[in-house]
């Protein structure tokens, strides 16, 4: 099955071809209950423990649509500048699969809840407006676990188990319009779009948008056409690309692969493709000819959804500040450069810095600690920044202790380490470990005198007026006090003695 794929280098591919991309993003909504029944939406529970006759599709059971899920979908649509349908229906998508309890999925077909919107993104200096084709609501399927065999896939497995806990969890699908004209930036645009969408969804509090847990899943469409051809090529649909980095890699790979096929005089097949995280490559899935006829028709078990204009207006009025606006506001408030802001976003540190500032720290200090010492620690331990066992309030307190002179940067780093190690609040740690800066003259005088006696030639230079040489004596004092001395005060004392 695995055939060697020859690739054209990315630069060469882009020299001859223009890519068009498109993204379909599935978002599991964070509603308390499932889409069509009262079962809880839980992740990681005992298999088949959050199920009932409705989400198991038992004979005779009927769906009742969740108002919360419809509300969340409308809010997503509004945040994406979409039109909200005044009347629309669910549809049945019919196909047989063991993890789909009814052997049809309740979805939306030609009457989506939200249509025709946009989302602005930025890649470096370039701003791109991504058109949104539609946002619709559907139910998730169960999950199959294939046991035995080498691949974890259904082929070659000894047997399969199905967990229906996920079946019926509300799922929103956000579909972009085709995105042409981004050239070599196409992979980055794809990534930036998913990043921006994820932040938007998080700001709306409609999903926990964890790609690694599958609550946000992407299908990436890619096509290329000879530069200047004025038409678009045949697209492939790479399914289930489940990290931001993979979104970028998948587009890049498909551009290179398709360029190689076209260069060799071949044709691109309209097909689905699987993305492989380990190799960063895609392999062929179903072709258009094998595509199922889903026999969509309006779901007769559900009444049409007809959100009133008043309700939609209320939801629009209640929208929170959206990420782009928030970033603009914070950047102005904090006086940070574009580069600093990008660094904060990439590190997922915006919320943390904002909360640290709210707890009393300056923006510069908050940024410095989160992107410096704490980012380094997160990196070392392989955790997300937000998952570190240190709170914005604690970081703010540490910066306060530095500002007031109780701690210097070196001590502050130690205190943060000890907070992460679980030793308690900053003030407790400073007290328990005796980490405060020593600025008490009586304690410092001995160390200063020792430094002067220990370095007579330096002392002589200072007496001659070369005060810049005092740094060396301060260093000696710091060394003697194991960093706890107040360096400024030590310097003052040294100069006093030698004047």
């Amino acid at each position, binding site marked *: 099955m695995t055939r060697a794929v020859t690739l054209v280098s990315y630069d060469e591919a882009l020299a001859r071809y223009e890519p068009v991309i498109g993204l379909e993003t599935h978002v599991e909504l964070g509603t308390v209950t499932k889409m069509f029944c009262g079962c809880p939406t839980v992740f990681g529970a005992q298999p088949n423990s959050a199920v009932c*006759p409705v989400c198991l599709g038992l*004979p*005779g*059971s009927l769906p009742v649509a969740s108002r919360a899920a419809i509300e969340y979908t409308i809010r997503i649509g509004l945040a994406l500048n979409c039109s909200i349908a005044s009347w629309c229906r669910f549809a049945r998508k019919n196909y047989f699969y063991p993890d789909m309890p009814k*052997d049809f999925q309740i979805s939306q077909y030609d009457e989506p809840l939200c249509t025709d919107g946009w989302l602005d993104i930025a890649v470096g200096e370039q701003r791109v407006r991504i058109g949104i084709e539609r946002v619709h609501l559907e139910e998730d399927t169960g999950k199959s676990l294939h046991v035995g065999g080498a691949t974890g896939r259904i082929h070659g497995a000894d047997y399969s188990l199905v967990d229906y806990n996920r079946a019926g969890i509300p799922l929103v699908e956000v579909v972009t319009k085709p995105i042409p004209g981004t050239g070599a930036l196409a992979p980055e645009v794809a990534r930036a779009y998913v990043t921006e969408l994820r932040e938007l969804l998080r700001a709306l509090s409609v999903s926990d948008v964890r790609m690694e847990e599958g609550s946000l899943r992407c299908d990436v469409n890619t096509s290329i056409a000879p530069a200047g051809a004025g038409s678009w090529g045949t697209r492939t649909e790479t399914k289930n690309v489940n990290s931001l980095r993979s979104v970028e890699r998948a587009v890049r790979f498909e551009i290179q692969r398709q360029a190689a096929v076209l260069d060799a005089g071949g044709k691109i097949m309209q097909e689905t493709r699987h993305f492989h995280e380990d190799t960063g490559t895609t392999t062929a899935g179903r072709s258009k000819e094998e595509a199922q006829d889903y026999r969509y028709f309006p779901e007769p078990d*559900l*009444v049409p959804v007809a959100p009133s204009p008043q309700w939609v207006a209320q939801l629009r009025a209640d929208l929170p500040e959206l990420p782009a606006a928030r970033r603009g506001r914070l950047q102005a408030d904090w006086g940070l450069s574009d580069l600093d802001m990008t660094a904060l976003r990439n590190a997922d540190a915006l919320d943390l810095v904002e909360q640290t500032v709210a707890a009393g720290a300056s923006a510069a200090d908050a940024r410095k600690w989160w992107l410096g010492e704490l980012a380094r620690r997160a990196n070392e331990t392989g955790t997300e920044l937000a998952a570190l066992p240190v709170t914005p309030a604690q970081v703010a307190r540490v910066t306060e202790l530095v500002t007031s002179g109780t701690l210097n940067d070196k001590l502050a780093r130690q205190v943060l380490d000890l907070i992460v190690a679980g030793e308690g609040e900053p003030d407790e740690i400073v007290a328990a470990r005796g980490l405060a800066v020593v600025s008490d003259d009586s304690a410092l005088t001995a160390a200063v005198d020792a430094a002067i006696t220990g370095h007579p030639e330096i002392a002589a230079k200072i007496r001659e007026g070369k005060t810049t040489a005092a740094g060396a004596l301060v260093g000696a004092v710091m060394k003697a006090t194991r960093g706890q001395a107040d360096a400024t005060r030590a310097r003052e004392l040294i100069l006093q003695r030698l004047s």
Partner: protein
Amino acid sequence: MSTARSTELTGLTAAQVAAAVAAGEVSAVEVTAAHLDRIAAVDSQVRAFLHVAADEALAAARAVDDRRAAGEPLGPLAGVPLALKDVFTTTDMPTTAGSRILEGWRPPYDATITRRLRRAGVVLLGKTNMDEFAMGSSTENSAFGPSHNPWDLARVPGGSSGGSAAAVTACEAPLAMGTDTGGSIRQPAAVCGIVGVKPTYGGSSRYGLIAFASSLDTPGPLARNVLDAALLHEAISGHDPRDSTSVDAPVPPVVAAARQADVAGLRVGVVTELGGEGYQPGVLARFGEAVELLESLGAKIVEVSCPHFTYALPAYYLIAPSECSSNLARFDAMRYGLRVGDDGSLSADEVMSLTRAAGFGPEVKRRIILGTYALSSGYYDAYYGKAQQVRTLICRDFDAAFEQVDVLVSPTTPTTAFAIGERADDPMAMYLADLCTIPSDLAGNAALSVPCGLAPEDGLPVGLQVMAPALGDDRLYRVAAAVEAALERRWGGPLLGQAKGLAAPPGRGEASGTGEAGGIGR
């Protein structure tokens, strides 16, 4: 209990049983035991039941007796036995929908109808036979063999709720629940000489009703008289938050209407398109007399044309199969019911195919294939889409008609009960049994069948169909109760009082069957 007493109890109406139980004249246990005895005596011939839950029924009856002893108030149907179509889920009985594919399945939940009946103190005797997944007009499509018409065991009791109709007709139960998708309550009621009602779509909950065609399926009552049907209608009706298509509106006052039994001044429309060629002469004769009777009772008779009714049958045979092709997909051997070929060497797909091949009968397969085709890409607009347009036109025909008249009437079925086997190999002939009943299903309005005599040529019952606008269910009962009362005055008793075979009142033995119902006009 003496045999005479037992016989007497099975001849009572539901209203009489409830009154006697409430008054303490008879215990619910006694009534239930009498009906279980009757089932034991006749059901080997009628074959109305797929499952009889004797112990559970007696326990339920005992609970009613205990409540009465404790002085608790009893509802209007407490202690009344009922035969439940095997399409409603029951936690204490198997539920097969007449199909092998669900053999052995024990539902973990009760249908809303089941729950409401239990709460009303109705005693569930068991589950009745039906055409597989309610697809048919004779019960011959049941995987478990046909039920027999108590008037003539060689004939069908109609379908798909044929088991329910036969059980009520043979006095195995005073009440039964059926479901109507294309006529599945009214047609068996008509050919068995009893009352059957299809409430307004959404008036009775579908939760726990195994779906055939979601936009059409409607649970409704079967009984030996109009008032009993109304009592059951009221007991099962009302909004159900578990069914999105359930109507959130007050239940029409059907019991009051059945007691009112008055048609004076009512405008009654005779549908031109439902009669004439292809109808059995005796059916048309009895129908004509029923219309005259209504006129004599003070109703104003108008002829009304509903031009699109001609297309109702073909439209129905696209919409219902389309929905069923999707509704029946879930029977895939993965979670419940039959599983064929799971020997460890076959894939899930193969097991699904083998199970569905073995588990579904030919009529179900025919409709799944029809529906799959009608919904297919490239054919959707021409078939499913067009059928929905026809459905809209039929609704408009009804709307226009109901601007002129209060109710519409027609024969319920073109013919009386046909012989078992007669139409089994001719689906088109079988489908014609629902010619008159389908329009109301497509429009989702209310319709009822009430006996209007016997066809002279075969001595078998003929049904009068009454149709009313959505949520105008009470009008059906006004008309039917008036017709019933007038006919019983002429006949000197109910139609079944003159029945032959096992439809004859218990204890009467073989009646002559040559009573007044053979000719009501004289």
